[in-house]
């Protein structure tokens, strides 16, 4: 078992494009860690740099207590499940799982035995003799996992582990992965572009964009206290409302309306400062009678999400999304008030996009 420490890690491609740009990250021993970001943000490059499949341009990488910056992939003690699983089509399930042991010169009987045991642990009984082509997507994934954990690696890397499964199977596999990781206690890093997946699985999440780290934190932290507007907009199934606003007389002018400053930010802003006011749709109430702090608004679009309803309202010249319980569903054109939950509102600097407070 081992933690991973990357210091000022840079991966530069010929032509000067940086896939990973000065990343500092410390992944703790036994942690389930997610690399999250839109496609092309460098998360897979970072994962492959940890694996040793990409040569690191500068910076250092330590796994456990060994500096592996320039080490061959085979000696790093890492195992990886590829997005397409990379199961060898010419070997049966048993030989696939046992392949890493074959490289380590374990005797055939012994490695078949280990493979069978690992396979049992991943509910692959009776499939040992099958070829990968004869398995379902979920089974293939479990074989790939079995092959990866068969050597008891220090670090397990997963590249988009759920993306090749259909939607129904994905939930099941998510639970399965979480259980497996908990049982093995192996340091696990996985890459995903799906924020819901990262929130559901990971102990901590690193959000990346254009090769740079945006934030590292627990799911709760990145959801509730995003470092900047990018993270705020990327995390959450309904993106956060981010509205341009201005500080006026210790209050916030958002379009025609004024709201209180988020608690704790009063001393950090100056009069007339341009800021961005953020509030998640889930933390805004829609009411039909005026109350303190309410802003008048008109419903323009109603989207049914099943147990709740997402409405888009016009408040003056601003638009906001509001999540409403199903039994309070308004109709387009209805007039009413919106009430933001003050303690959940956030303030960002309009220029740097960083969170204030």
């Amino acid at each position, binding site marked *: 078992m081992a933690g991973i420490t990357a210091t000022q890690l840079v991966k530069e*491609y010929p032509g000067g*494009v*940086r*896939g990973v740009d000065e990343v500092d990250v410390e992944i703790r021993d036994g942690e389930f860690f997610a690399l999250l970001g*839109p*496609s*092309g*943000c*460098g998360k*897979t*490059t970072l994962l*492959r740099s940890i694996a040793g*499949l*990409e*040569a690191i341009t500068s910076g250092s990488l330590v796994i456990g207590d060994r500096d592996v910056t320039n080490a*061959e*992939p085979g000696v790093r003690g890492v195992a990886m499940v590829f997005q397409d699983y990379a199961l060898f089509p010419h070997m049966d399930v048993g030989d696939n799982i046992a392949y890493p042991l074959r490289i380590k010169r374990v005797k055939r009987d012994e490695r078949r035995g280990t493979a069978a045991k690992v396979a049992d642990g991943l509910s692959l009984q009776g499939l040992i003799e099958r070829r990968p082509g004869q398995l379902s997507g979920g089974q293939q994934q479990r074989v790939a996992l079995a092959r990866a954990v068969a050597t008891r690696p220090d670090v397990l890397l997963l590249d988009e582990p759920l993306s090749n499964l259909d939607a129904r199977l994905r939930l099941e596999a998510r639970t399965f992965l979480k259980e497996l990781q908990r049982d093995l206690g192996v340091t696990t890093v996985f890459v995903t572009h799906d924020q819901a997946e990262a929130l559901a699985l990971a102990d901590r999440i690193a959000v990346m*964009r*254009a*090769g740079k780290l945006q934030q590292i934190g627990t799911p709760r932290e990145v959801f509730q206290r995003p470092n900047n*507007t*990018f993270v705020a*907009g990327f995390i959450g199934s309904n*993106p956060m*409302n*981010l*509205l*341009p606003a201005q500080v006026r007389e210790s209050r916030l002018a958002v*379009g025609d309306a004024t709201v209180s400053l988020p608690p704790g930010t009063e001393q950090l802003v100056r009069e007339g400062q341009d800021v*961005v006011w953020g509030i998640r749709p889930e933390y805004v109430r829609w009411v039909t009678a005026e109350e303190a702090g309410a802003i008048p608004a008109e419903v323009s679009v109603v989207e049914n999400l099943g147990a709740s309803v997402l409405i*888009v309202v016009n408040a003056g*010249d*601003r*638009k*906001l*999304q509001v999540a409403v319980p199903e039994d309070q569903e308004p109709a387009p054109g209805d007039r009413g008030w919106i009430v933001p939950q003050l303690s959940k509102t956030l303030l960002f600097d*309009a*220029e*740097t*996009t960083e969170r204030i407070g």
Partner: protein
Amino acid sequence: MTSSTVTPPAGRVTAPRRRRADDVAGLGKARAGLFVAPALIIIGIFLLFPAVWTVWLGMTDYRLTGLQAASPEFVGLENYTEALTDPAFWNSLWLTLIFVVASGIVGQTLIGFGLAWSVRNITGWVKALIEGLVLAAWVIPASVASFLWLALLDRRTGTVNALLGTEGAAWLIDHPMEAIILFNIWVGTAFSMQLFSSALSAVPPSQIESAKMVGASGWQQLRDVIVPNIKGHILTNTLLITLWTFNTFTPYLVTAGGPNGKTEILSVYIYETAIPGGQLGLGAAISLIMLLINLVIALGYVRVAQGRRKR
């Protein structure tokens, strides 16, 4: 997203497309070079070098036997003047032109297209039989094919004379050029047939049906719908067939260039000059002319292929 939502600040970097390391097996440049080298050396010595060597050889009086075999002398362009002033060379070139046009460009292409056209809508054993026969003619070794034609056209007991009741007609002596042209059509049509078969099956049926619905005749459908659709294939076919027919040596096995050089196409002429004739220098000079003609045809093909890829 709503209209007034803050867009990310300026200076947003468009994320680089994910690129993957090429050297996935950890081969390294040096080892890769080692992998490539043996193949390149063989190609270099036995394919590239002969082509270059031809230039030098063509400017010597190199012979297979005698004094010039031991110490060939540089004679400059003498071989070229000799070749270009020799009526036998021009005769050979003329015969080659007739051979390529009649057997390759016209014969193989038209019959290949005709066969592809006539089997396109039938299935079952008739199609299998016709395609099988044509392809078999292409697959069997050249020396077998040429013997089969010697038997077919034999003066006394050949099948053709038996069928036509023309016993004693010496086809290979009286009509040698026609004979090797037909022979080459027989051998080579399979390629055109296969190429056009796959081309025809790629013509969208809806286009043909549209033409039918406005009352186009079979000929009009061919002209207005099918030919425009398979234009690229026709060009590819023509250039490849030209190159191959120009370079074939197989007619030698039927007529050996005879009688009296009447079927001495360029490939046979080079062979006769250089190897039995022993004039390697002169043979090389003519070879270089042949290589240059090949180059022109091949470059034409490359241009067509590139043009099509761009489209």
